[in-house]
């Protein structure tokens, strides 16, 4: 048989020969010292050229691919934000305590004490919340795990619901309706009087059921999963924004390679703005402790949700939404800030439409703060 040519040897070593050709090549090489040497040489060339080419990977920008590693598990943010939210909400409620019914507030005060301890500031939440939730046997404290374990979210949420309507009434502005679908949203505009009335109607059952006695029993508070909505809407009225809730910065901390800033859209929504100084990557994580609501509520609210969605103008496409990916129950949108040329990722348990609204708010806030806080 003819000796193997160099191309065939390389094809053989690269596994590119057909099975028959490979068998023939193998049979020949076994009995041909000359071709054995050629094969050995080819192996050397293949290995050496690979090694040489790897040297080219030290390209100017200097990054090499690694296995993807998550910096922080998403649930951590969710839990952290929930702790912050519950703490803020309960503190708010405690403030309002004087003007509210004591029976309604008594449970809230209990849980607010626990959550206030848990949430001295966003910077420490992450490290502390897990340990606290694990080590504390109290059912109320366990409820801080709201988003990680939806069923346990209800006890802490129940007082919030009860308090929400009165707070709104005190402010003279009625809160927009509770969302009934899993598309819990940050509805920033007021839904109008009819919708507000619906909201109170929707809120009422859980009040009557869970008030006063044993609010810690999850089964007794079927609608409590919706708590963040009235919570943040109550806050919205307190903050003076009936038409549009105002973002506010609640905390900021330095982390390796950047800063993390927590914004509160409302007590039910905390937003984490991460700015990485090195890679100029910014990611915004919105967390909202919204779980699915019972079907009967969903049915009641579905119609008004729909009607309200119709009244919502589409968010102005000031910046093109670049990315819409669903991660589990979470959505995220991303965009490139045209002025800073930085990438921003907004994710949360919101629909894309809602995230776009939040995005617009964040952009406005960032625009107004850019003088104060140059990035």
């Amino acid at each position, binding site marked *: 048989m003819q000796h193997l040519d160099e*191309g065939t*040897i390389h094809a053989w070593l690269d596994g590119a020969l057909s099975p028959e050709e490979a068998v023939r090549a193998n049979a020949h090489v076994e009995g041909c010292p000359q071709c054995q040497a050629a094969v050995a040489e*080819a192996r050397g060339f293949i290995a050496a050229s690979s090694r040489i080419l790897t*040297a080219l990977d030290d390209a100017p920008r*200097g990054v090499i*691919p690694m296995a993807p590693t998550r910096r922080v598990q998403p649930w951590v943010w969710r839990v952290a934000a929930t702790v912050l939210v519950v703490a803020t909400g309960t503190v708010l409620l405690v403030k309002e305590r004087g003007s509210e019914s004591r029976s309604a507030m008594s449970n809230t005060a209990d849980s607010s004490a626990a959550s206030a301890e848990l949430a001295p500031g966003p910077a420490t939440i992450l490290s502390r919340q897990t340990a606290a939730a694990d080590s504390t046997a109290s059912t109320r404290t366990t409820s801080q795990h709201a988003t990680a374990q939806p069923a346990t979210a209800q006890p802490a949420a129940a007082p919030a619901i009860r308090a929400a309507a009165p707070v709104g009434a005190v402010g003279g502005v009625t809160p927009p309706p509770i969302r009934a679908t899993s598309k819990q949203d940050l509805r920033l505009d007021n839904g109008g009087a009819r919708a507000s009335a619906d909201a109170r109607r929707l809120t009422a059952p859980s009040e009557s059921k869970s008030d006063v006695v044993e609010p810690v029993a999850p089964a007794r508070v079927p609608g409590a999963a919706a708590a963040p909505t009235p919570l943040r809407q109550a806050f919205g009225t307190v903050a003076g924004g009936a038409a549009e809730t105002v973002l506010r910065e609640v905390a900021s901390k330095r982390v390796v390679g950047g800063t993390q800033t927590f914004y509160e859209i409302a007590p039910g929504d905390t937003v984490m703005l991460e700015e990485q100084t090195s890679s100029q990557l910014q990611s915004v994580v919105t967390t909202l402790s919204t779980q699915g609501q019972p079907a009967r509520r969903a049915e009641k609210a579905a119609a008004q949700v729909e009607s309200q969605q119709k009244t919502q103008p589409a968010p102005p496409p000031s910046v093109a939404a670049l990315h819409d990916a669903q991660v589990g129950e979470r959505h995220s949108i*991303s965009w490139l800030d045209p002025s800073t040329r930085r990438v921003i990722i907004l994710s949360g348990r919101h629909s894309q439409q809602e995230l776009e609204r939040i995005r617009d708010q964040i952009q406005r806030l960032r625009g107004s703060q850019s003088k104060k806080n140059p990035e």
Partner: protein
Amino acid sequence: MTDVERLFRTYNAALVRYLTRRLGDRDWAEEVAQETFVRALRQPSIQNERAWLFAVATNLVRDEARKDSRRRKHLALLAEEERESMVEPAETTLERAQEAAMARKAVDALAERDRLALLMREEGLDYNEIAEALQLSPGSVGTTLSRARRRLVESYEALQKSREEREKHAAS
């Protein structure tokens, strides 16, 4: 995840590496890679994705692609995400810098077709894919690769040798 995102996540690393090796400039490589995915987005269907992507990227290097800024931003974002999962390499030593310079020189010395075939092979393309991307006959890929590898290694070794001699002279 959209189709282009899947494509991006599957092939971007290899494509950027291929282009970086080809161009010697990471930013440029990423730019071309992004343009390649933009093209893929416009394509109703692609039969052999990898061969298609590498062929288009190769052509774009030649052609200097027209920009499509909006989609480019999308892909820049994805690239940013991916970059997030990367780490900075150890500080480039002088030794490594010299190796890289020699490797670049040796690669540049190859004929274009040989170079591209070799770089594609290094990214895992099989012979059929390389043939498709470079419009070669599948039977000639082995010959092309063997020639590319031999020449690359030989010219690299020649550069290495002359460097050693220079260093010897400098030392004496």
